[in-house]
């Protein structure tokens, strides 16, 4: 049972990674939520023992390989988001989807803030306000996405 849900977790994370790095036209790329972060958030809240912090760290490392200027940048940011989600999972899980979206917005803003600071320290500053846009779209897409993730994760309602 545990093995099966772990396999599901890896598969869904892989699909989310592919959706995250899929080439899109620039205007759409700015709007695209980071599906991998949403997926990791979902698993951390709903099954905090299956993936735990390791999922966040290694998913972040995978993102670093695809689009990070420095290895470890996304890993740190995503580990932080995972830690918060795991710690508060009971509080978040009991809320309706709309209120969960607020937590998602907070998590995504925190995630982007960590990236923003590390970008600045490592000498790749990107100061365009467009980089914060995906936090908003990510929060907006959360209610339908969470239902879909629940279906993919095998919790058929």
């Amino acid at each position, binding site marked *: 049972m545990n093995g099966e849900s772990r396999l599901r977790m890896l598969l869904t994370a*892989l699909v989310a*990674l*592919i959706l995250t*790095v*899929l*080439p899109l*036209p*620039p205007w759409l*790329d*700015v709007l695209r939520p980071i599906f991998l972060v949403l997926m990791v958030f979902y698993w951390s809240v709903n099954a905090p023992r299956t993936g*735990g*912090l*390791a999922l*966040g*760290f290694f998913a*972040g490392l*995978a993102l670093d*390989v*695809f*689009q990070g*200027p*420095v*290895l*470890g*940048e996304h*890993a*740190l940011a995503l*580990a*932080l988001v*995972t*830690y918060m989600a*795991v*710690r508060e999972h009971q509080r978040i899980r009991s809320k309706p989807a709309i209120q969960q979206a607020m937590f998602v917005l907070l998590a995504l803003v925190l995630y982007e803030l960590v990236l923003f600071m*590390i970008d600045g320290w*490592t000498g*790749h500053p*990107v100061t*365009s306000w*467009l*980089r914060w846009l995906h936090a908003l779209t990510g929060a907006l897409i959360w209610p339908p996405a969470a239902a879909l993730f629940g279906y993919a994760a095998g919790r058929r309602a």
Partner: protein
Amino acid sequence: MQGRGGSPGFRFTLYAVLSVVVMYLDQRQHYLEHVRYVLQAAAYPIQLAVNSPPAAWRWLKESFQTREVLQADNARLHAEARDLELRTMRYEALARENAELRGLAQALPPVADRWLPAEIVNIQLSSLRQRLLLNRGAANGVFRGQAVLDDRGLIGQTTHVGPWSAEVILITDPEHAVPVRVERTGLRTIAVGAGDTSSLALPYLPANADIQKEDLLVTSGLGGVFPEGYPVARVTEVHRDAVQPLAQVRAAPLAHVDTDTEVMLVWFRADHPAAPAPATDASGELKHGNPAMQPRPAPPKPRTAPAADDAATAEDPADAAARKRAAPAPAPAAKPAADGAAQPSPQAGQP
């Protein structure tokens, strides 16, 4: 930071420290090139999978091309090939003429030693990052910091090289800067990527700099990556403001960054005078002076042909730069002489 369970907090600290260490090693020490190499190899299948829908779409479009379109394409390519042949016909003669004018015994070989076509596997074009992934890697001899061109001009350089793939940073990436020279005046400056595929910014030109619309920018050969004289961009916009000390200049890259499907990786001859000047050390910063270095006497004036030959092959980048700076001034005076010299040269070339 006492977590409710204690254990998640501890593990988070562990992972946070781990990622900071990884970042430090990757950023400061470049210890992780091998790790990156392995990770890039592992990521390549996913990148291929991600690229398969656009690739399949291209393939479909190509295979349902009508006969008329193919014929038109064929006719156009034939015309282009004829055009290029006509142009290269004069190349040999021009190279010899150039060698004579420079006082060299033989014409120099072209600075590009060999090149390798590479397909674009994945494209990231956003305002934050402009990168390409090519399907050639270390197995094909690709190295870090290699120049990438298309048939019109400069595209970028490789940043991370995996065994079968290489990541290219485009000249339009906001983190990329390329040293350029204005072809018309010889003025040197730096072109910085503006974050979209159609423009470069030239932020370091004073308001009274001699630059105008339609000026061609070519690589200046400084910076250690690109050799001198490759076309980069054309100036599209010059904005001078009386209160601003710097001119605001924009240029459009000549390479078709967003429509290319194939690009060229180029190897250059290191001993060629136009080859990229080597960087001073790995980080490009000169930290300590070299006490052994002494000012050198001015080079003798090139009177006889062999002496000029020596000076041309043994000159170092600083001399070349100094000469280039001096070049625009005597150019008008030298021009009639060059015209005069051009007339006897075909006769000299005939026997």
